[in-house]
């Protein structure tokens, strides 16, 4: 090998020779770095500097790094290892180490969302580049052209000889520089460029097998270091005293009772109040004492949950944001509806939901005397959090390191960086010159975190005499979905990115078309989405209000529920079985495939609409469909309705999922089961309670979620389609499927339609009596 070789757009170079060990380091390079960057204060990865991404070690072990962290999907410990092992033609077990999430130890940034990147996560291409580099090395070593080499389990053979990957790198330091684009500290991070040849799917041996998640053992045996376990020398425990309302300003801080709490301190910055102590119990008690004596201004700027949908319909301004329309819109909807023999006009309503992690958010921060800032947390987007902390402190981003640890899943809340407590920990640590651990209470977590946006949708549709959908029109209305501002910075009056607005923010207040249309046989379709400001934010003197954030299947859940319930209603109008009605209006064979699968696997009874039963318990079946991130889904719910109390018992959920290539069947099945339970929870139980001043949900009684008593039988059917050649997303969508299927089952069981969630007994009872 010459000292520098081009490998399909990547550059392979030999840095030198070493006596023992040896390594091939696969790093990245930006196409062009402007100016000379100063070395960072902390040992953070500099985007201009090649750095390790995949390491091939002389002992035949492999290390991979990803900027994304695990949130319970297990993807980076299973699917990512399988994908890299596959591209390298190495054994799964050879990938002995996965380094993830830490901003100073991983190369690419990005967030824990769309982890499979429509089939092309960075690790796949990085693996493919490394494979080509290894083939080049082997070709030189064995004196055989690359195209005559074969590889199995990390051993290259050709010309009657073999050499392992470990032997190829032994006693050398090799550096492969892979082309990338993007901004590492943005929400989306860097993306590997170029088109290295990928292993043909027909030759797969690792993808498709159910390898266990490598972190499960440490979590089950209490050996995992969770973020809750991080303890630094001299660290203080903190509890926050948050404002009394979402618009209250601080009038006076309660005096700390030094007799009872001699070791405690109060920190105040703007409207941010924190109480710290060397022991956690003293911090808790002292914070309660200070809170009881602290006074805040009053504020009433929210509609309250009882008036939420009226507010969205009558008071919210939907004209400021550009309207989004679907690319699949077609035909003349008004004329088609006018000509239809049967028509439906209906409004659907969805409440705010909480991410509601089982562990309230917490973080440890260490702002050091030299200006270096270390944040220890559980975040979906460490690099975005890093840039947010740097902005807040007006310090260069290379002064900030974010380290990630295992924690309670929070389903999208931190995909733009911030979960809640990190910035508050940083502010307190900076003020005190010591490491500080901020632990939110359950109440903090429900009342001061973001929520999944409420939404309303208005549908008009028509059905002809033959039972076909002639026209479908839907207008979706949803407040801004993604507020990534650091709430502690807002309270302290420190800089943040802009709140969602018409112009300056990353996501803005515009709504998008999130739910792709799947009923292609419909001649006339008009789908539009409207956005508005977050409720109460601009009138709040704190600029807080009801902040929103994406939650598992974001936006699409809010649009799929009204669509799928409306399609079931259309089937009833048409006098056609709702599952068959969907098949009749679909053209994509994968949509039809998941529908046929749930029909076959659920015990679905094909029938036209059955009028509601009278007394006792009435049973029904319902179906829903979704296309999301390269994956097709269908769901059947079978329920029993107590006709007196209105209580719904979901007896069985059947989900069919076609993601193209199934990477890890056992892990995907567990993900879908879990999503289905969250779906039942959303359908039957979840609704944020709030009054004119703030969130009143404060614990698990005032924000109930599904328990094991609510658990239906769950059947998951995985449809593996290697011929698709791509990996669709598997861990989202399942949580959004249940609600429209359950509403369909309610309609089947009772003849009554639930057009809002949750379907609590008193609401169902009111429908039954109407």
């Amino acid at each position: 090998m010459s000292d520098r070789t081009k490998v399909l757009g990547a550059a392979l170079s030999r840095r030198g020779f070493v006596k023992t060990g040896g390594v091939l380091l696969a790093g990245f390079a930006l196409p062009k770095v402007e100016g000379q960057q100063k070395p960072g204060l902390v040992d953070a990865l500099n985007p201009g500097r090649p750095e390790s991404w995949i390491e091939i070690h002389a002992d035949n072990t492999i290390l991979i790094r990803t900027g994304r962290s695990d949130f319970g999907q297990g993807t980076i410990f299973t699917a990512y290892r399988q994908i890299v092992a596959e591209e390298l033609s190495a054994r799964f077990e050879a990938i002995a180490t996965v380094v993830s999430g830490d901003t100073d130890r991983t190369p690419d940034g990005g967030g824990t969302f769309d982890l499979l990147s429509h089939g092309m996560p960075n690790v796949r291409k990085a693996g493919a580049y490394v494979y080509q580099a290894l083939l080049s090395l082997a070709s030189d070593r064995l004196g055989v052209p690359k195209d005559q080499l074969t590889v199995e389990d990390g051993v290259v053979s050709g010309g009657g000889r073999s050499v392992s990957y470990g032997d190829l790198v032994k006693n050398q330091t090799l550096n492969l520089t892979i082309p990338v684009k993007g901004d590492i500290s943005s929400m989306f991070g860097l993306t590997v460029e170029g088109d290295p040849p990928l292993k043909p799917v027909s030759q797969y041996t690792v993808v498709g097998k159910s390898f266990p998640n490598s972190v499960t053992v440490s979590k089950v045996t209490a050996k995992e270091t969770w973020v809750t376990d991080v303890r630094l020398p001299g660290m203080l425990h903190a509890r926050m005293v948050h404002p009394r309302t979402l618009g209250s300003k601080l009038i006076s801080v309660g005096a700390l009772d030094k007799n009872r709490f001699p070791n405690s301190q109060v920190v105040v910055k703007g409207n941010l109040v924190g109480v710290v102590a060397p022991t956690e119990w003293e911090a808790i008690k002292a914070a309660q004492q200070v809170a009881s004596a602290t006074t805040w201004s009053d504020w009433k700027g929210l509609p309250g949950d009882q008036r939420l949908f009226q507010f969205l319909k009558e008071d919210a301004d939907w004209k400021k944001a550009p309207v989004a329309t679907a690319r699949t819109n077609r035909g003349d909807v008004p004329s088609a509806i006018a000509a239809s023999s049967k028509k439906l006009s209906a409004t659907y309503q969805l409440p705010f939901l909480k991410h509601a992690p089982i562990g309230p958010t917490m973080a440890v921060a260490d702002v050091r005397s030299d200006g270096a800032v270390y944040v220890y947390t559980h975040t979906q987007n460490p690099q975005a959090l890093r840039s947010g902390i740097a902005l807040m402190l007006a310090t260069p981003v290379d002064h900030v390191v974010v380290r990630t640890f295992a924690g309670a899943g929070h389903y999208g809340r931190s995909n733009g960086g911030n979960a809640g407590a990190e910035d508050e920990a940083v502010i307190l640590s900076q003020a005190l010159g010591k490491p500080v651990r901020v632990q939110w209470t359950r109440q903090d977590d429900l009342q001061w975190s973001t929520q999944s946006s409420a939404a309303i949708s208005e549908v008009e549709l028509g059905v002809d005499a033959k039972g076909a959908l002639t026209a479908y029109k839907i207008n979706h209305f949803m407040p801004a979905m993604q507020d990534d501002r650091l709430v502690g910075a807002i309270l302290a009056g420190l800089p943040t990115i802009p709140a969602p607005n018409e112009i300056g923010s990353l996501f803005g207040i515009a709504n998008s078309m999130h739910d792709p249309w799947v009923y292609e046989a419909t001649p006339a379709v008009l789908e539009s989405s409207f956005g508005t400001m977050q409720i109460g934010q601009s009138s709040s003197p704190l600029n807080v209000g009801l902040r929103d954030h994406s939650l598992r299947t974001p936006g699409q859940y809010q649009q799929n529920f009204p669509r799928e319930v409306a399609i079931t209603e259309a089937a009833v109008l048409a006098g056609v079985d709702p599952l068959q009605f969907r098949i009749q209006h679909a053209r994509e064979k994968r949509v039809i495939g998941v529908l046929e699968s749930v029909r076959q696997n659920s015990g679905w009874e094909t029938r036209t609409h059955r009028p509601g039963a009278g007394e006792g318990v009435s049973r029904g079946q319902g179906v829903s469909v979704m296309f999301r991130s390269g994956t097709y889904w269908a769901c059947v719910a079978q329920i029993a309705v107590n006709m007196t109390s209105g209580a719904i018992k979901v007896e069985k959920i059947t989900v069919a999922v076609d993601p193209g290539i199934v990477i890890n069947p056992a892990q995907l099945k567990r993900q879908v089961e879990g999503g289905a339970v969250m779906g039942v929870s959303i359908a039957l139980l979840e609704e944020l309670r709030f009054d004119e001043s703030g969130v009143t949900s404060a614990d698990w009684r005032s924000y109930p979620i599904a328990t094991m008593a609510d658990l239906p039988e769950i059947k998951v059917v995985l449809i593996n389609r290697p011929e698709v050649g791509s990996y669709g997303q598997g861990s989202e969508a399942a949580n959004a499927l249940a609600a429209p299927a359950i509403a369909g089952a309610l309609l089947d069981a009772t003849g009554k339609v639930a057009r809002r969630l949750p379907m609590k007994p008193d609401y169902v009872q009111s429908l039954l009596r109407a």
Partner: protein
Amino acid sequence: MTTVTVNGVRREIQAPTDTPLLYVLRNDLELTGPQFGCGLAQCGACSVLLNGKEVRSCIMTLGSAAGKEVTTLEGLPARWAKQKGLPDEEAAKTLHPVQEAWIEEQTPLCGFCQNGMMIKATELLERVSSPTVTEIKDAFTSGVSPHLCRCGSYTAIIQAVQRAGAAMAKRSQA
């Protein structure tokens, strides 16, 4: 000074007696299996066994645990080894059948609640060797509050409890 037997070892603890046991375990004894979930005995993330009964360590004061036996997630293997009279060298490499079943069934998603789930499963299986699905659901939803999993791993938990129960019954016969 309060004396509590934790995972078979007598511990003298300095913390004030009104301190919830959870903070004593996590911060003083560095036993981090139990997690803070709500501080209200509403979720079960903090569960431990107190004299063999599942309790919520977030509301139980240190004082009320005085003189009693606490078992945390860390202590499950030794608890099983003692119950089965395993020799020391075998005990050192043995997990509790509940933990083994949780691994074999790949039960955790994020895993934050699973401490309490495994503690509850241990309590149940020490009482009922082969529980039905109804008995399992009843155990995990009765008492001071249901055990909550936000990721929705309930199906996997039930399958793991049944697997662990079968393994424990088999080893009791052997």
